[in-house]
C-alpha cells in the first residue's frame, strides 16, 4: 500500500504521467486536512454514516424477520419463491432512477434504496441459512421431543446464524454503496453529493479526498460489524469453519 502510494507520488511529481486532473497523494492529503479543518468534511460524513446505518438496521430487521418466516413456512416459501428468484436478479442500482422519479430529490429516496438493498441481501441469506439446516439436527430435535418453538430457538436459528451474519455484512457494504450512489444522483447531501460537487468544481484533490473518506468509512463499518458479531457470539468466532 505504502509502496503504491509512493510510486503514484513519484509518477505525478516526476511528470511521467500528465493528466490535468490527477493530483499527487500529497495534494490529496493536504486537501483532506483542510476539508477536515474547515468543517466541510464532517457534516456529509455524518449524513452518509447515519443514513447507511439507519437504512441498514431497518432493512436487516425486515430481512431477518421475513427470512425466518419464509425459511420455516413451507407454504409461504412455495408461494413466494418464484417472485424472489425474479426480484433478486434485478441489480439494485438499476432502481436508483426509479426511486428518483417516485420520491424526488429527497432523503426518503435515499433511505428507501438503502433499506431495499439491505433487506434483500439479508432476506436471501437468512432464508438460505434456515432452509439448509442439516436434517441430522432436526432429527435430534424430534428425538429429544423438543417443542417446535425450542427447535426453532435452539437448533434452527443458531444453525442459520453464520449465514445471517454473512448477509448482514454484505448488506452493510451494499447499503454504503447505495447511499453514495443515491447522494450522487438524487438526494443532495452526504459524501456522494460532496464528491460530485468537487468534481464539478474541478477540484480533483478534494474529490479524491472524499473518495478515500468513503473507502475508510466502508472499512470501519465492516470492521465494527465484525467485532460486534464476534463479541455477541463468541462460540461462532471460536467455532470450527467446516462444521454446519
Amino acid at each position, binding site marked *: 500500500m505504502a509502496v503504491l502510494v509512493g510510486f503514484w507520488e513519484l509518477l505525478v511529481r516526476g511528470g511521467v504521467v500528465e493528466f490535468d486532473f490527477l493530483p499527487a497523494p500529497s495534494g490529496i492529503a493536504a486537501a483532506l486536512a483542510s476539508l477536515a479543518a474547515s468543517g466541510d468534511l464532517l457534516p456529509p460524513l455524518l449524513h452518509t454514516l447515519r443514513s447507511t446505518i439507519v437504512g441498514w438496521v431497518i432493512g436487516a430487521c425486515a430481512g431477518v424477520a421475513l427470512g425466518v418466516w419464509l425459511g420455516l413456512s413451507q407454504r409461504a416459501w412455495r408461494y413466494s419463491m418464484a417472485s424472489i428468484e425474479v426480484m433478486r436478479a434485478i441489480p439494485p442500482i438499476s432502481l436508483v432512477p426509479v426511486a428518483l422519479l417516485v420520491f424526488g430529490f429527497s432523503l426518503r429516496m435515499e433511505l428507501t434504496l438503502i433499506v431495499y438493498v439491505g433487506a434483500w441481501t439479508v432476506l436471501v441469506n437468512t432464508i438460505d441459512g434456515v432452509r439448509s439446516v442439516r436434517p441430522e439436527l432436526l432429527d*435430534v430435535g424430534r428425538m429429544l421431543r423438543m417443542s417446535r418453538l425450542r427447535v426453532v430457538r435452539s437448533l434452527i436459528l443458531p444453525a442459520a446464524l453464520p449465514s445471517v451474519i454473512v448477509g448482514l455484512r454484505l448488506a452493510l457494504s451494499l447499503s454504503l454503496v447505495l447511499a453514495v450512489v443515491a447522494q450522487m444522483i438524487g438526494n443532495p447531501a452526504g459524501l456522494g453529493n460532496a464528491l460530485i460537487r468537487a468534481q464539478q468544481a474541478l477540484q480533483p484533490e478534494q474529490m479524491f479526498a472524499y473518495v478515500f473518506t468513503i473507502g475508510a468509512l466502508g472499512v470501519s463499518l465492516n470492521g465494527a460489524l465484525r467485532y460486534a458479531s464476534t463479541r455477541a457470539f463468541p462460540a461462532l468466532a471460536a467455532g470450527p469453519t467446516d462444521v454446519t
Partner: protein
Amino acid sequence: MTVDSGMPAATAGRRPASEPAETGDGRDAVVCHCRNVSVDFDSSEGRRRVLEAIDMDLHEGELVSIMGRSGTGKTTLLRVLCGLVEPGPGSVVTVRGQPLAGPPEGAVFVFQNYAASLLPWRTVERNVALGLEGKVSQEEIRERAAGALEAVGLAERAKDYPWRLSGGMQQRVQLARGLAMDACLLLMDEPFGALDAMTKTSLQDELQRVHREREPTVAFVTHDIDEAVYLSDRILVLSGSPATISDEITVDLPRPRDQLATKELPEFLQLRRRVYDAIVSDR
C-alpha cells in the same frame, strides 16, 4: 422440515388396555414390541418396500444387536422404534405398552454421525442439557448433565466445545445426552463405526459399564461381528429385500465381559462363526 408431523402411526394396532404387551412366560417386561412391521420409501421408481413382516420384542435391560448387510434397513428399523420413520399400514409398534405416535418418551437415539448431531455452538454440558431444557428446573438440568458427564468420564471437559474433543469423546457426549434424559431405551446406530480400533474397544467397555449400572434396554446396530457378539444378549439378523428378520442368535457369554478373556472363549468363536454364517448366507 416438518418437525411436528409423524402423528399417529400405529393406531391401527392399538391394543386394548387389558392386554399389556408382555410375553407372559415370566420373563422381563417387554419394552419394545413390534409385530408385522413394514416400511415403504418413495423412490423414483415408485414405492419401494424396505422392511417387511418384522416381529421383534426387546425386553427390559436387554442389549440386542441388529446386524445385516449394508442397505438392508437396519437403521430404518431403529428409526421406526424412535418414531423418526413412520411404519407402513398394519404395523404394530408399541414402546412400554404405548402405541407409537412420534418419538416415545424415554427413548434416545445415538446417531452414527456425532459431529452432525452435536451442536457446535454449545459447550459439552449445554449439549447434554439440550433435551432437558424447558422440561425440568435449571438446577435439575445442571445436576443431571453433570451426572451424565461423570458417567461417561467427561466431567472435566464440560465447558469445552464438542469439536475440540476427539471423535471418541464426542460420541461419549452423545451417549451422555441420552443418559441425562434418563433413557430407558437407547437406540444406537453404528455408534462406534467411525472410530479407530482402540477407541472403539474402550467405548464398548464404557457402554458395557453404563449398561450394567443403569440397565437401559439397548438396540444396537453394527457391522462389526466381534462387537455384536461381545456386547449383546441377543443378535437379530436382517436379510432379504424387502428385509425381514432371518435369524436370531442368543449370546449367553458370562458377564462382565473382557476384551481379551471373553474373546478367547471357544463359545465366543463359535458364536462369531454362527453370526458370520447367518449374515453371509443372505444371498
